[in-house]
């Protein structure tokens, strides 16, 4: 009996990766649409993780000619208990009897195909087509970063960078080159020796030949297996990486008028922004500022998960922003500001705020103002709107409910909006 047993486990799975990619590619529009739903349901903490998307099952259908219900069906079934020939029974509702489609998938329902996007795919769809507006405008390429790049091979280097294959290839070549004459002579002598032995030459002649052969062998053996000239190392040179530097100020209103829900919405927005920036740009700094009557700079964790509240003075935050900007970030930085608030402000503060805003704007590439809630006219909206008339880089959007956040986010960062 001929047989072979093969262990294929080493080959690894993943044959279907390409087909999965094709599937996602085909349904990218449906997936993008499903993102809105998905973003709403995610908690801030796992915003950056993958997630389950739903695609209507109808979209996935592969049509074919098939029978509908109706006509005559003669079914043969097992397990008769009490029926006799000629019995009549009421027709069971659709789907039953044939045994199909009773058990619906409780995670998806009958109409949806649910599947999990991994983190990479999720972020890809989340920020597909979005850009940070005007990032290249200043392009103050301050050369600060160097990146090692491969640049052929070198004859010196550190052991960890040794290219073993090349080194051995060199050594092999050198060995062949340096011993070829000796080897040739050796094989010639070998032939002589054999011929001599057959012809019955004197023991002396044979000994002479053998001695000569030995000395040739010695000479071949003296050529070192590995010589310092064989060594080859990967050569790396440092090349400068021009970087466009950007800083983003996240300003959040945490005053008493911002309820838990409003704060949560603002945080969602910043969380999206933060993920977006992290993904898109390598060199980017983020400053977190929260304010009520007083503004303070906080770290990421405190910003997203900390609690604090009080009255509202927007100018305090703008003041702090300006201070940090002047202190830490020179004119070669690209500056982005994103402010989230419910629009309430201490009315006497409006003048100061607007003045600060006007001062700030020329230094800023993009200033996104997000107002949470559905007040017809808030304290800040009108004054800000006036400023926006003069400065194109100030964009204002209103967010009424959680479901608005992702669409508004997309709107703000699609290339046309900028």
């Amino acid at each position, binding site marked *: 009996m001929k047989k072979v047993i093969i*262990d294929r486990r080493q080959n690894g799975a993943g044959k279907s990766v390409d087909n999965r990619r094709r599937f996602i590619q085909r349904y990218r529009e449906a997936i993008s649409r499903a993102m809105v739903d998905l973003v709403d349901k995610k908690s801030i903490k796992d915003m950056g993780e993958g997630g389950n998307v739903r695609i209507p099952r109808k979209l996935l259908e592969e049509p074919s000619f098939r029978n509908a219900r109706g006509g*005559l069906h003669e079914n043969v079934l*097992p397990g008769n208990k009490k029926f006799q020939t000629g019995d009549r029974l009421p027709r069971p509702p659709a789907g039953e009897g044939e045994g199909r489609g009773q058990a619906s998938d409780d995670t998806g329902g009958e109409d949806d195909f649910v599947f999990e996007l991994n983190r990479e795919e999720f972020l890809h769809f989340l920020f597909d087509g979005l850009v940070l507006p005007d990032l290249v405008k200043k392009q103050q390429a301050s050369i600060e970063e160097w990146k090692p790049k491969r640049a052929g091979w070198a004859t010196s280097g550190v052991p960890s960078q040794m290219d073993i294959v090349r080194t051995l290839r060199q050594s092999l070549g050198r060995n062949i080159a340096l011993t070829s004459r000796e080897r040739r002579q050796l094989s010639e002598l070998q032939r002589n020796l054999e011929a001599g032995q057959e012809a019955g030459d004197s023991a002396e002649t044979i000994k002479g030949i053998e001695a000569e052969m030995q000395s040739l062998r010695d000479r071949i053996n003296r050529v070192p297996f590995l010589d310092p000239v064989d060594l080859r190392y990967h050569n790396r040179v440092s090349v400068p990486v021009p970087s466009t530097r950007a800083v983003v100020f996240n300003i959040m209103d945490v005053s008493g008028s911002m309820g838990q829900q409003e704060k949560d919405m603002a945080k969602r927005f910043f969380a999206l922004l933060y993920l977006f920036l992290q993904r898109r740009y390598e060199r980017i700094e983020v400053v977190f500022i929260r304010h009520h009557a007083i503004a303070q700079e906080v770290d990421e964790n405190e910003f997203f998960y900390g609690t604090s509240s009080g009255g509202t003075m927007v100018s305090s935050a703008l003041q702090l922003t300006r201070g940090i900007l002047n202190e830490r970030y020179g004119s070669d930085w690209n500056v982005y500001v994103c402010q989230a608030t419910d629009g309430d402000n201490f009315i006497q503060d409006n003048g100061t705020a607007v003045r600060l805003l006007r001062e700030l704007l020329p230094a800023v590439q993009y200033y996104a103002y997000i107002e949470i809630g559905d007040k017809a006219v808030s304290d800040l909206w009108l004054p800000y709107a006036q400023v926006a008339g003069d400065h194109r880089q100030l964009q204002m959007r209103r967010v009424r409910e959680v479901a608005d956040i992702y669409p508004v986010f997309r709107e703000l960062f699609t290339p046309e909006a900028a």
Partner: protein
Amino acid sequence: MKYPFETGDWTFEQLDLAVSVIGEIAEEYGLDTYPNQLEVISAEQMIDAYTSIGLPIHYGHWSYGKEFIRTLQSYRRGEMGLAYEMVINSNPCISYLMEENTMVLQTLVIAHAAFGHNAFFKNNYLFRMWTDADGIIDYLVFARDYIRRCEERHGEKRVEFLLDACHALAPYGVDRYQKPKPLSAEDEERRAMERLEFERESYDEVWRTVPIAMTPSTRQPMDTPEENLLYFFEKKGMKLRPWEKEIIRIVRKLQQYFYPQAQTKVSNEGYASFWHYTLVNALYDRGHVSEKFMLEFMKHHSNVVFQPDYDDPRYSGLNPYKLGFSIYSDIRRICEQPTEEDAHWFPELVGKPWTEAVHEAMRDYRDDSFIAQFLSPKVIRDLKLFIAVDDDRDDSVEIGAIHDERGYRQVRESLSRLYERNNFVPDIQIIGANWDSDRVLTLRHTRYQRRPLDERQAQDTLQYVADLWGFPVVLESEEEGQVIEMLSAEPDRSLDRD
């Protein structure tokens, strides 16, 4: 006492031994197989294999991605176990063994797939007629590479569309009867000469004076209707490029390769189950395995041939493993211990060597004829089969026949009919094309048991037909000789290229 085969984890030595020992016993029973190639794979790899319809190599398509996602998810959620086995009709015959399986399960799989299915593939007449076990792997490699190259050259989108269309028509990509061999050049010439000669002999000057009718051409029926739609487009598609026709051909060829499998589900699975049962029992009888081994084996075996009753929530149709296993087991019983009833029903089986009878039943039948021939009253009684007649002209369901003296024949005929192709693939054929005028293509659906088509799906599928054909198409639905419904589709112009 120490047994050669242990329960618990398997080792390569044990697998090797199992194949050898089972192979020897199988030979004694007269199983004729291809050489075996057993491949140990992981669960993830099994899912990969699942989703490309069981082929080890297959071209890429999004629907396999969908299948993969679906299978992987339900596997991870624990909603489904993976099939124990997967086997490929090739020479050598490739069977997959999952690494998670215990030695007992591996033994079952080896007996079932590497010997049962293997022998079926090699000997069943449909497989012999329609599949080429020696060439399939090479063809799959060719198909994958060819389609990949087409994607590079003509774009993934175009190829994807073409494959979508072909997949929608896949059931109509098989020949059910072998087409006559094309004539040789000489025969072709001789026939042409004979025709000329006939025309000369029967020439009559008078006919020259009759004016040729100038009526606009209507449907020109074809000599013979074509039920292999993909074949028709491959050969006659006027708007399709050569590379597109080659892709249609690939889908068609693979469909043809799978055609015998769909026709022999009961017989094939039944045969494999019968042999795993028989072979492993032989192992026990000869002292190769312990009672503990057999207990575990019987548990798996009864899972495989489990048949819930029609009113059980787990019921999802007749289990082909169970039905086939019961029939083959009963053939053996009839040969060895016939009753009076058997002598009446199967006089030719009584006293015949059972191995011969079992092999013959495997060799020369497909599901419908296998059931029509071998479903015995005893199996009908054991399974308590009955017929439910569901006629939409009637407001209740009638019990047609049951497992009693009057019903056996009827149950057997009904069950056999359920496995005829008509029952699950609507009969649709190309009956005409207006070659000379607007090139409208006409398809005819002949209703089986007055069953209508699912109209939405039919419309979508017909759209694919129109897109492949490149001109309008009409689908007539016919009942008792009357066309009672008509669908039509225009080719989607946006798909027209240069």
